[in-house]
């Protein structure tokens, strides 16, 4: 690897030498207008081909380019929504040239600026696959974090909400997933700083976690670019395999000060209730289970006596809850200094008491040009969030767990007003008591900032230096009351836990950007530099048991300090990177990039990873044989490259020992088996794509096919426990993801007048096929809740493996399972692949109508062909084996010989097969959901003006109005395995393959909101 670094060094020197330091300078200025309306255009980009000089027009449409080299030059003018223009001018030394250009409008998005990592480019010039989502598309969604707002917005980006609790972490998968033990979430980069996005919480509340990403206010985001193919993401090398989400925050633009106000209020309620048995049906089922197995037919009480009341626990625990958000921002500036100062507020109560999420934040983004050659930018955001959490998925003391599981026969409260408990006949700890008496607070402070200096050494060469910090501090306090009878804490006299977690990351980037003047036919854009990333995580935890009162809830009030922890961990990354793009005749583009990363997470032997990529694009529509034809724009792209994944804990390659004490005597024991050969997970991805615009700019489409093979998976694979260890991190196996993506935007009805009726639609569609192609010795293994997710060659990652339920014997009422190995007995060996959590296709569909001031938008998200392991059925479809309340489809159970049904007979002893985990618990998880329906009205300018606004819009919207699905749980958009915790240095995460399981996930809400957007 040393040789490569020397090459880089030489390259840097050549770049510097190739650049002339002496140049005569000229100034170019002018005004850009709309060719139809003659209105000035703000935000148009004016650039000088062959230099890094670029300016944006101000609110009067004016631009100025100083320090330009004298001589003949090509000026390019670009703006979103307009066709690009190009003009030849001659700049005179020391003189000033005026160039005014009118632009004609176009529906294609070819002129948007796309961030590609250590630089940006125009969409029309990309030779790689990048999806973009604009601020308008993510605005005003009543959801805390950006990942949720991206759902259905970009082809090939699958967002799974995991559960409905406010501020919850989500799962985001770009072009499928490959990793088994390493994280499958993409890298998030905010204004050039790769941030810590994962969960650093220390409180395990059953599956669902808090994500540091939710500390980033969505109101601050200007655009999101998702780097999907290897040629795009290889610039982030060792962390590019899962795709890269590049987030750019809003910045000030030249013009008079503008105040923006944006606010909504809304109300949420559970989008769905589960159908559970009432007390008579419950009693009938359970008594029948006793009768069937030869026990007392009134074992559970007499019908008509014991079922005198029927408690609806869902009614008791679910509530309607408010959500509100507000943003106030001031932006503006002049040629020297541009600013944007914003404050945001987001407050969402959960539909399960007492959960809720509240965030306040402030952001200051400044751009300062002290001289024509030097530009300084700073971005600084401070947010504070407060998350009231509840015990979640699968926890025995989870509110939703027990709401579903609780018997309807026992009242919530006793006659004396106390909460009923298991002693009083409840099946489990009272969920209403849990909601009322226990608290979990997570408060975090996030500081995300960077300072960037760009020095134009010559018109062609720019040096950028950037220092970024991402500091996340999380404080957690949990109190579990002794008054929740039957709970673990009750046995301990109450429990309090207090945790502090911090994650600090410092990023230093230095790079050179070279845009030499190669004449009129050739364009070159090259970037090379280095990056250093230092990450440190730290945590403290303490727990106390035994409290004299529910009013004294601090650990300091505890009778016994029962648990304590304090530790820290570091990981560092050193990187060098280079990227070049050469375009000939504005038609043929060739790109290449390399990155080498050195990581402290790997042993000396395999510490450095090397990630190259190449790409090419051919602008067919500019060829003479197509020019002026059907296509306004037609480009073919192809790319190939290598990316990596290192999202594992910090020290898995080292053989380690740690403390193992006995009584009060200190001891030690092995904690990790060494694997000195551990190295990077590497993904080789091939992508071909086409971008096209036709029908006079009314149809634009992008399609991609990709083939993505991941080798040397970082896998915490099981090893024989006879070694003293049950697993080891190893580079094992391969996973293939291949598929295609389509984005299609059409203007279906184009008005003749600007405020006429306009109808546009956007479709994102992605098909991904995921298959494990190799494993260690070909040995399959299982993971996930109840070990149902199979990792097996030839199958999708995490396919569901369990007994295959084929029906119910009409004579006996017993479940029939397929005897796969034909040995005449149903055993563990008969478990077989019965489904997959991976969808056949996913996407989103948006339809927007505008007429005069009105706008109506419907946004549909969908996922089809995936299955869900409804793990709630283990208990609530067990034919009376478990005392949980049962789902109403148990009413269809077999009751007498001859009954034809799919529900086995009730069985007290659990011998009918009803309580056997099988494909009976696997359901179709396909869904279509109307994610958003918004009706807005923009106030007429004269009216708005009379109120003092430049612009004002009011709107009403409903999120999750309906979901079309056969899935019987709360929501098919679910992942109870949650996202794991790899960035904080824990060695626990292996839930990456456990997609598609619902184990009492928090229900999702339907939200009605009303909002105002105004500026003046």
């Amino acid at each position, binding site marked *: 690897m040393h040789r490569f670094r020397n090459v880089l*060094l030489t390259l840097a020197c050549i770049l510097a030498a190739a650049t002339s330091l002496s140049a005569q300078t000229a100034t170019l200025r002018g005004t850009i207008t709309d060719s139809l309306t003659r209105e000035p255009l703000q935000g148009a980009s004016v650039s000088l081909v062959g230099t890094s000089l670029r300016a944006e027009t101000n609110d009067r449409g004016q631009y100025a380019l100083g320090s330009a080299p004298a001589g003949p030059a090509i000026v390019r003018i670009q703006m979103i929504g307009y066709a690009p223009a190009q003009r030849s001018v001659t700049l005179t030394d020391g003189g000033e040239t005026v160039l005014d250009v009118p632009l004609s409008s176009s529906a294609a998005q070819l002129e948007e600026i796309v961030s590609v990592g250590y630089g940006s480019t125009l969409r029309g010039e990309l030779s790689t696959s990048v999806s973009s989502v604009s601020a308008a598309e993510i605005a005003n969604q009543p959801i805390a974090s950006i990942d949720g707002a991206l759902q259905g917005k970009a082809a090939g980006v699958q967002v799974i909400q995991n559960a409905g609790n406010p501020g919850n972490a989500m799962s985001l998968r770009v072009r499928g997933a490959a990793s088994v033990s390493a994280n499958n979430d993409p890298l998030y980069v905010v204004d050039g700083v790769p941030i810590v996005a994962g969960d650093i919480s220390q409180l395990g509340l059953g599956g669902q976690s808090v994500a540091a990403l939710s500390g980033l206010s969505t109101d601050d985001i200007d655009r999101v670019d998702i780097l999907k193919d290897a040629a795009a993401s290889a610039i982030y090398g060792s962390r590019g395999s899962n795709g890269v989400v590049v987030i750019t925050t809003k910045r000030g633009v030249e013009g008079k000060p503008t105040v923006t106000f944006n606010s909504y209020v809304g109300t949420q309620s559970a989008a769905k209730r589960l159908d559970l048995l009432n007390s008579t049906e419950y009693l009938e089922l359970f008594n029948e289970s006793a009768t069937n197995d030869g026990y007392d037919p009134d074992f559970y009480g007499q019908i008509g006596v014991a079922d005198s009341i029927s408690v609806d626990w869902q009614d008791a625990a679910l509530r309607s809850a408010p959500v509100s958000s507000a943003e106030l921002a001031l932006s503006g500036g002049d040629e020297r200094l541009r600013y944007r100062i914003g404050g945001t507020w987001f407050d969402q109560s959960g539909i399960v008491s007492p959960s809720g999420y509240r965030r306040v934040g402030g952001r200051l983004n400044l751009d300062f040009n002290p001289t024509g050659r030097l530009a300084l930018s700073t971005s600084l955001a401070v947010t504070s969030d407060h998350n009231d959490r509840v015990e979640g998925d699968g926890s025995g003391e989870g509110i939703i767990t027990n709401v579903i599981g609780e018997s309807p026969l026992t009242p919530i409260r006793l006659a004396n007003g106390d909460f009923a408990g298991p*002693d009083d006949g409840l099946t489990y700890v009272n969920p209403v008591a849990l909601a009322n008496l226990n608290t979990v607070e997570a408060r975090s402070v996030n500081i995300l900032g960077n300072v960037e200096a760009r020095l134009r050494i010559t018109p062609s060469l720019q040096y950028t230096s950037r220092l970024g910090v991402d500091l996340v501090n999380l404080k957690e306090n949990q109190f579990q009351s002794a008054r929740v009878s*039957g709970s673990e804490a009750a046995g301990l006299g109450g429990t309090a836990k207090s945790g502090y977690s911090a994650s600090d990351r410092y990023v230093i980037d230095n790079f050179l950007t070279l845009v030499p003047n190669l004449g009129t036919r050739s364009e070159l854009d090259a970037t090379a530099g280095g990056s250093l990333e230092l990450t440190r995580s730290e945590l403290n935890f303490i727990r106390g048991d035994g409290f004299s009162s529910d009013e004294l809830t601090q650990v300091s009030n505890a009778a016994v300090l029962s648990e304590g922890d304090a530790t820290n961990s570091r990981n560092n990354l050193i990187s060098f990177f280079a990227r070049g793009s050469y375009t000939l005749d504005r038609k043929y583009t060739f790109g290449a990039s390399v990155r080498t990363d050195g990581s402290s997470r790997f042993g000396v032997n395999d510490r450095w990873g090397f990630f190259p990529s190449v790409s090419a694009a051919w602008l067919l529509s500019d060829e003479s044989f197509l020019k002026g034809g059907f296509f306004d724009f037609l480009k073919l792209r192809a790319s190939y490259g290598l990316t990596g994944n290192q999202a594992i804990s910090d020290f898995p390659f080292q053989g380690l020992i740690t403390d193992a004490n006995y009584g009060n005597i200190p001891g030690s024991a092995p904690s990790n088996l060494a694997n000195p050969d551990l190295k990077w997970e590497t993904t080789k991805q091939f992508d071909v794509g086409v971008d096209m615009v036709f029908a006079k700019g009314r149809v634009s489409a992008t399609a991609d096919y990709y083939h993505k093979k991941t080798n040397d998976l970082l896998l915490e694979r099981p090893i024989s426990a006879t*070694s*003293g260890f049950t697993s080891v991190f190893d580079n094992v196996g391969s996973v293939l993801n291949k598929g295609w993506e389509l984005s299609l935007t059409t203007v279906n009805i184009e008005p003749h007048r600007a405020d006429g009726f306009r109808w546009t639609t956007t479709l994102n569609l992605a098909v991904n096929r995921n298959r494990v192609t190799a494993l260690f*010795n070909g040995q399959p293994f299982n993971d996930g809740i109840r070990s149902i997710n199979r990792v097996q060659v030839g199958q999708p990652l995490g396919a569901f493996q369990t007994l295959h339920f084929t029906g119910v014997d009409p004579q006996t009422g017993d479940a029939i399972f397929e005897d796969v190995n034909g040995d005449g007995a149903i055993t563990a060996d008969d478990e077989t692949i019965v489904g997959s959590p991976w969808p056949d296709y996913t996407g989103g569909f948006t339809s927007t109508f505008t007429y005069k001031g009105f706008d109506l938008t419907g946004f549909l998200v969908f996922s089809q062909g995936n299955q869900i392991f409804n793990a709630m059925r283990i208990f609530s479809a067990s034919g009376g084996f478990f005392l949980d309340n049962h789902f109403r489809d148990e009413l269809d159970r077999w009751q007498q010989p001859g009954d034809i049904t799919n529900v086995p007979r009730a069985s007290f002893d659990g011998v009918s097969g009803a309580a056997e985990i099988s494909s009976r618990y696997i359901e179709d998880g396909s869904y279509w959901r109307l994610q958003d329906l918004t009706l807005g009205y923009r106030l007429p300018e004269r009216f708005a003006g009379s109120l003092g606004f430049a612009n004002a819009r009011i709107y009403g919207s409903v999120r999750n109005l309906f979901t079309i699905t056969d899935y019987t749980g709360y929501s098919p958009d679910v992942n109870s395995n949650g996202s794991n915790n790899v960035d904080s240095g824990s060695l626990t995460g292996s839930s990456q393959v456990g997609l598609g399981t619902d184990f009492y996930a928090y229900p999702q809400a339907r939200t009605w909101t009303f909002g105002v957007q105004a500026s003046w």
Partner: protein
Amino acid sequence: MRIRFALALALSGALAGCDSLLDQSPTDQLPDDRAITDARGARTALIGAYNALQATSYYGRDILLFGDLPSDNAEHTGTLTSFALADANQFRADNTSADDIWNAIYDGINRVNIILEKAPALTDLEETEKNEILGEAHFLRALHYHNLVKFYGDVPIKLAPVKTVEEAADIVRSPVADVYAQINADLDEAETLITSTEPTTQATIGAVHALRARVALYQGDYATAGAEADEVIAEGYDLGPYADLFDAEGIDTPEDIFKVTFTAVQFSLEGFYYTSEDFDGRGEVAPTQDLFDAYEPGDERLTWSITLTDDGALSGSKWATTVGAEDMHVIRFGEVLLIKAEAQARENDLSGAVDTYNRLRDRAGLDPHTLGNEVTTQAEVLAAIDHERRVELAMEGDRWPDLVRTGTAVSVLGIPEFQTLFPIPQIERDVAPGLTQNPGY
């Protein structure tokens, strides 16, 4: 030109500093080549080997629970599927508890194997202490393998630590006889090397004899069992108040031979799982009515072991708190007396046998048996001993192995023969293709 020079300098400076930034180690763990490099390392490694016994799946809960749950002593009253299936004697190869117990025991074996490999070469360990450390390691290994063999039958014998990922998969099962041979060999070593007689939370010479007595009983070698029990008796152990054995803080009693220490922080879940939800336990497992009925009227052990809830349900109360700071007995003098009694009875010393087990009846406040009165034949004496074992050691993880050992599990519980051995965990067989399964699974 100056700029170019500065750039070159900056880049090369960055390169030089690289590799040291990449050399990071955890702050709370040590590289394993630093384990057992000196006397202190050996001592802490031995303590770490005892720590393995505290695991939840070992004496912290499962091995004790699963020594009663599949039998007529305890039943499942909670939610865990692996427990429910164990109670119903419907073990399957994917039973997670059967897997967890296996893992916990082999973790313990690996820890002693490291000591046995590294400690002999240490030069700063004085001979007596080195012998004591090695002897205790041998004792623990014997205990681990006996725990394995009595639940799983044939098991792989590992006598050296696994160093590479590759060798971990290369295992086969050894027949029960070979496992017992290894246990006896380890006990021989332990007997030669161990000199200590305290503390009882670690292996002592008395513990070696006691375990040997137990192992001999399982092998049907009654002469050895009786002789080893006599060695233990000669060490001066005695019966004390029954309740003291299960004291909330784990006080020492004259009956202690070897017990695993637990504290409020390093807690056991035994009490929490046996205690009914009515008494703020988890109530995952409860004593059976059959066990309750097995106690004779006036047996003081019943009142200590089982408590009735308000609605008459049974709550296991041997470990009376849900904190879990009680010490867990691996082997205690009461069991040694029962081993001796059984050895005597098997060898037809019936009156001796009755005298021996009467010590436990006496402690329980029950009238002594007299040969020719309550019991006469060898079968009756053995039945009385079996009964005595059941109530004396109830919920201490002995009932199921006893039923299997005496060949009565099938008749008493009405279960298929193959269920008398736990399955070899499927997950193990998936990663070690040479591992065979017990028949029937």
